[in-house]
């Protein structure tokens, strides 16, 4: 890939790259969620809080299972073939490093002026 991020050649593998990245993000967040709820459960004593957290914990585990299966089915995740997983890990690291090097936002991103006034305030 070249350094010009507006070059259409660079959009060649973008849909996969985007979807795999977001799926991996969802997977990690669902993991984090389950762990956070479990920790919270060990610290909570009120029965209603515990009931709520418990049902959310089960929901979180189910969600984690769903996203895992989806990623395996789509071949974005290979927990059983580690060499395949290794290739994906290195590829997405390389791709993201390349994005990291791009100058994506060369101009000012401060858009505060768009929000500072109320509509009637001319």
């Amino acid at each position, binding site marked *: 890939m070249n350094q010009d991020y507006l070059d259409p050649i660079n959009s060649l*593998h973008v*849909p*996969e*790259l985007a*979807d*795999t*990245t977001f799926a*991996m*993000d969802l997977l*990690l967040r669902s993991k984090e969620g389950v762990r956070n709820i479990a920790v919270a459960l060990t610290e909570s004593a009120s029965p209603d809080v515990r009931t709520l957290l418990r049902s959310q914990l089960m929901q979180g585990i189910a969600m984690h299972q769903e996203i895992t299966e989806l990623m395996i089915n*789509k*071949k974005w995740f290979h927990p059983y073939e*580690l*060499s*395949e*997983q*290794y*290739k*994906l*890990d*290195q*590829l*997405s*690291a*390389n791709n*993201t*490093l390349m*994005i*990291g*090097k791009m100058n*994506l*936002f060369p101009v000012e*991103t*401060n*858009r*505060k002026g768009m929000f500072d006034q109320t509509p009637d305030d001319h």
Partner: protein
Amino acid sequence: MDIQKLADHESLDLHEVINFKTLCLAKSKLMQGLVFDHELRALMQKDVEQSMQALRELQAIYQRAPFEAPVPQNRPTPIIN
């Protein structure tokens, strides 16, 4: 004797850390376009640079995983039919 290879469990931990770092890098990079505050944006840029350095180092160590394999140019299975 191959003393360079990593143990199974540390290789799997590396897999976790690499994917986590990759996501952190992508988020910090892309979120800069949404941020208003200069200092926050500068901090995110600093995080991007540090993450890139960290990711390169992680990648280098990851090559010593027992399940290491030649990395192809592109993903083997495109999702667009």
